[in-house]
């Protein structure tokens, strides 16, 4: 197994973007924030883009509300060698800003007030992923930071992050909307020929279900949008290229659990198929044994002895919690070994769990040390 070494990666001026990804609940946000803090303390000018941080973690970075712009982290006693900025993504506002920047005032108003826009910008499942990418693109373009660390949305699958922009751009591409909203005009040509009369039946069925008004709104929206951007697809494409460019690296975060590691496996394979650079796997919140010389069986036997005699309840408790810990550690080791067998080329670092939630810079600094293997 190769060990994932973070310090050389964070110190290398050629490292410009780090994307922390993984399935939900594995500690992506905390990992992103801890890496950013460490990089700033080692001298880099860093911004961390968080998506949905726990309240106390956000507060520890001085983030009190979504304001969609990076703010310098100012905390008493915190004087990094470099600089640390942080922000929380406001998905809706990022989308609105994008529209305002690229459309004229009148057209922007028309788009922003369209009911279909409201649906797409607030509840379409790929919007958060897309907007995270859009914001990353903007931060890169601003060129104010020499390292950008991005957290990814809490989707169930790590792959959603790569697929969602494409999915959204397909929707906004307008092919289907044009067909659905103007089937009479389009019928008989191209794609529709294949489907034939089934399509008009389908259109009728869909408009019975969805309602004519929504189709109309969607159609208006797509037309306004289309001319404005010269294609959403190109924009998604550019973001995609950014992710493949040198200087970008992916950090896959997983808990030492079967589900999270399965997702991590999919993601590792996908990155390699797409030619995207993988830094390695963070096996987050492990529980290494701290008293390795005492086998679990021996500890349990001794605890049983003590319990029978009723003496030394504290020592018995210590023995039992040690045995629990050995069992957990063994399981984690087994699962990680399985991952490594399947992906021998992937560097890995285990990050021992802190016993409680992180809620200040000291906690983040401690996680940074653990990430760096100190």
């Amino acid at each position, binding site marked *: 197994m190769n060990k994932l070494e973070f310090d050389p990666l964070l110190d290398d001026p050629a490292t410009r973007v780090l994307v922390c990804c993984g399935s939900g609940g594995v500690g992506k946000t905390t990992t992103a924030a801890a890496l950013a803090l460490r990089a700033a303390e080692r001298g880099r000018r860093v911004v961390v883009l968080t998506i949905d941080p726990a309240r106390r973690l956000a507060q520890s970075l001085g983030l009190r509300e979504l304001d969609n712009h990076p703010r310098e982290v100012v905390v008493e006693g915190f004087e990094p060698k470099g600089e640390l900025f942080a922000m929380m993504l406001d998905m809706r506002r990022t989308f609105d800003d994008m529209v305002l920047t690229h459309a004229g005032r009148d057209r922007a108003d028309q788009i922003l007030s369209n009911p279909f826009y409201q649906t797409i910008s607030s509840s379409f499942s790929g919007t958060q992923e897309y907007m995270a990418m859009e914001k990353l693109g903007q931060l890169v373009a601003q060129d104010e930071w020499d390292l950008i660390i991005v957290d990814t949305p809490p989707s169930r699958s790590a792959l959603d992050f790569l697929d969602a922009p494409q999915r959204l751009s397909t929707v906004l591409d307008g092919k289907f909307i044009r067909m659905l909203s103007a089937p009479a005009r389009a019928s008989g040509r191209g794609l529709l020929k294949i489907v034939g009369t089934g399509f008009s039946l389908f259109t009728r069925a869909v408009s019975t*279900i969805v309602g004519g008004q929504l189709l109309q709104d969607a159609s208006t929206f797509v037309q306004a949008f289309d001319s404005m951007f010269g294609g959403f697809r190109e924009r998604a494409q550019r973001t995609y290229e950014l992710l493949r460019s040198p200087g970008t690296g992916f950090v896959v975060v997983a808990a030492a659990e079967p589900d999270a590691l399965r997702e991590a496996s999919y993601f590792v394979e996908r990155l390699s198929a797409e030619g995207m650079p993988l830094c390695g796997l963070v096996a987050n919140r492990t529980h290494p044994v701290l008293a390795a*010389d005492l086998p679990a069986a021996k500890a349990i036997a001794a605890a049983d002895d003590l319990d029978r005699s009723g003496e*030394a309840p*504290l020592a018995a408790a*210590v023995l*039992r*919690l040690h045995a629990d810990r050995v069992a957990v550690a063994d399981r984690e080791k087994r699962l990680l070994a399985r991952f490594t067998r399947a992906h021998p080329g992937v560097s890995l670092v285990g990050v021992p769990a802190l016993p409680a939630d992180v809620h200040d810079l000291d906690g983040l600094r401690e996680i940074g040390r653990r990430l760096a293997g100190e």
Partner: protein
Amino acid sequence: MTSWTEELTRARLHVVSGKGGTGKTTIAAALALALATGGRRVLLVEVEGRQGIAQLFDRAPLPYSEERIASAPGGGEVHALAVDAEAALLEYLAMFYNLGFAGRTLRKMGAIEFATTLAPGLRDVLLTGKVKECVNRTGPDGRHLYDAVVLDAPPTGRVVKFLDVTKAMADLAKVGPIKGQSEGVVRLLHSGDTAVHLVALLEEMPVRETLDAVAELDAADLRPGAVLVNRVNPIRLPARSISVAAEGRVDESRVRAGLQAAGLDLDEFTLEGLADETVEHAIRVQSEKEAMELLSESDLPTLELPELTDGVDVAALYELAEVLVTAGVR
């Protein structure tokens, strides 16, 4: 830990939600087994296209049909169904329009995904519609085919939107077949036949999301059921030692004397390791206790499920089901 209430026993549709990563699917499966215990027939449904049930029961992906996947103690049985919004839409359209071959072609083209994307509410209405159909279905004897249906629902961040069919319908056609069906779904989801359970872990974010979800459910006039606290670690230390140890103080001479009494003569390094493990254990116990207190603000029946160090396999599901049965689930 409180227990399952009489009111929950009357529910026929058990919706299980929770923050991502809390073990929602595992708990939904264990709940289905628990409800089936003693000879009942239960349907376990998933709606997110992830084939989580098949993975959990270690079998091939489920087709779009109800398959028997497990037996429960006392002659009960659990069936499973992976509802797919596309298949549900086609099934639906087939009832009213004869799409046949064209339907399959449209599916290949992604047109159906497109239609469900156009109106995100449509997908939810189709999925909950199928669930309602399963809950209400009767056998030849006129009795309900399933004694209970357990729904592995979307995570807490989305579950209220998912269940709030009335709101979803605002986007959809004001007349037509779906409208008629959705009224039945609304009735079921807001009735005493439905309970929405929330799976939580004793950590900050899952607890926070659980409390938020309870408030959102209340506001939407949906009925929160029980809080199912997953992966609860055993508390090993005597109560009086916990707060002291959490501050980093372990009486090492006492531990050493105790270990010697048990015939263990350990070196300094190992003793220090044990003390560090003890401190971490105590800090975790304390923070879990705080999380539990915060959870009690929800004022819901709260059931605890143990951490399983060997991981979750089919045998473990039965173990969890047994814990639920002991806590009164039936």
